[in-house]
């Protein structure tokens, strides 16, 4: 694994968590019940915290005078390498929960690996802390999948539709590119094929409890890791980056 690839792998961890954290934070003040405003905001805070840690580490490793904010606010959508799933608009509560459910099952297993690998102690440190947070994110989303799936007919139909709508964004999570492959060979990143198996087990168990159907695997969307995003990301970044880009000399 080259040094560049190593840094890129860390940056991707930051991009995934920042993009999802940014999306999720939009629920603050608008949730279906006050307890969920708190839970979703708390999850968003965890993710933004994880992003800050990964960006700070990536910035230190690349040593080009950038910091967490330069990485978050002064890169464009073609530079972001998050998975497409995470940048999709929030939709209704069911859409948000399904996105969270798919990602949390993946991120939890990814952090299990990252916290145990011996190649990069700083990544392991960040992942160990994040792992505890992801355990909660996973439980929170899985419980809602069950409640919505096995709740009313309306909620069952709605959340089943969300699962269908988002399914084609799950394939990318397990598609290794050169960075993933090099990271795997170097012992930094997990084997995505094995990760897919544990992810499948988690998802299938929970969907069964929720009386929901797992969709057939069909065509899968891809491109996030290559910086080829959906149309949604650049709007999201335009909003997020407006102040630092308007006042590049200011500190806040």
């Amino acid at each position, binding site marked *: 694994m080259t040094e560049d690839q190593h840094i890129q792998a860390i940056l991707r961890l930051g991009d995934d968590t920042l993009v999802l954290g940014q999306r999720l934070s939009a629920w603050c003040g608008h949730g279906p019940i006050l307890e969920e405003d708190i839970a979703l905001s708390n999850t968003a805070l965890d993710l933004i915290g994880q992003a800050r840690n990964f960006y700070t580490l990536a910035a230190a490793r690349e040593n080009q005078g950038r910091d967490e904010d330069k990485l978050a606010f002064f890169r464009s959508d073609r530079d972001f390498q998050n998975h497409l799933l995470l940048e999709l608009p929030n939709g209704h509560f069911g859409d948000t929960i399904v996105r969270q459910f798919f990602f949390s099952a993946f991120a939890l297993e990814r952090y299990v690996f990252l916290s145990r690998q011996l190649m990069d102690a700083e990544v392991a440190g960040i992942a160990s802390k994040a792992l505890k947070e992801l355990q909660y994110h996973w439980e929170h989303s899985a419980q809602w999948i069950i409640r919505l799936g096995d709740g009313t007919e309306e909620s069952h139909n709605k959340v089943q539709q969300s699962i269908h709508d988002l399914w084609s964004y799950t394939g990318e999570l397990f598609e290794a590119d050169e960075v993933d492959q090099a990271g795997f060979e170097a012992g930094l990143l997990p084997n995505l094929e094995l990760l897919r198996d544990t992810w499948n087990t988690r998802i299938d168990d929970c969907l069964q409890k929720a009386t929901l159907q797992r969709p057939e695997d069909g065509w899968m969307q891809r491109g996030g890791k290559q910086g080829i995003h959906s149309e949604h990301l650049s709007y999201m970044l335009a*909003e997020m980056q407006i102040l630092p880009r308007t006042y590049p000399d200011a500190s806040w």
Partner: protein
Amino acid sequence: MSETDKNLEARFEAYVAEEKKIEPKDWMPDSYRKTLIRQISQHAHSEIVGMLPEGNWISRAPSLKRKAILLAKVQDEAGHGLYLYSAAETLGVTRNQMLNDLHTGKAKYSSIFNYPTLTWADMGAVGWLVDGAAIMNQVPLCKCSYGPYARAMVRVCKEESFHQRQGFQVMLNLAQGTDEQKDMAQDALNRWWWPSLMMFGPNDADSPHSAQSMKWNIKRFSNDELRQRFVDMTVPQAELLGLTIPDPDLKWNEERGHYDFGEIQWEEFYNVIQGNGPCNKERIAARVKAHDEGAWVREAANAYAKKENEKRSKSATHAA
């Protein structure tokens, strides 16, 4: 009023006068209960409506640290709403009833949240001035005669004082920043100063509920006393920031030992209360939208909980 009620009321008043706490199961006059429900629910509504103007800037916070702090702060407000709705529920009203009153305009919330947050500096001004004014109002409530409210307020005040400090920090960074940032800070102070003074309510002579609330140890200081205290505290802070308070009549009065300040535009105050503020309609619409769009989620959670309870009671019957 019957003889028994008179006795109960006399005992209640003596009890409160001794600074003892009234608890949910204690006898209390109906009017005390109603006053508290009105005040605590208004306070809870203010917390959750107050999430909207600040929530407006979470997506555009100018650094990741500021984003995290702001998100944590707005999340705290949701938590305050939750404690306060719970405290009000101990008086025999449900959260649903209270929300319904908010959504139909029957219940009020703090009018300050009907003003828009137009720039990032408003996140500083709201924390510094609005939370600062709220603390002035709220610290005395930690000693309020109703136990659940008093205890909720202890926790609320701790978090509010942190919020106020972070708001001041945002202002300080702006005030020490570029010329554009300084302008942004001054502009925010110009727009938030007077509405913040209005947060203490009408002048004492025009405050309808004050006297009875004072007698019941719900209210400890008058609106004008608290407003004066806020002005006295805030003027030196503005000086430290190098910002100008937008009041030509503001000056130190040696004789009184307080700052004199100009007359509040009460016409604006009453108009905003009556629904004519810049954001009254948007704020309520946003709350109603969240509630209505969340109905299917709440129904699902209730239906699922019911099914689980039925399963549990069935298996308990079998076990027996």
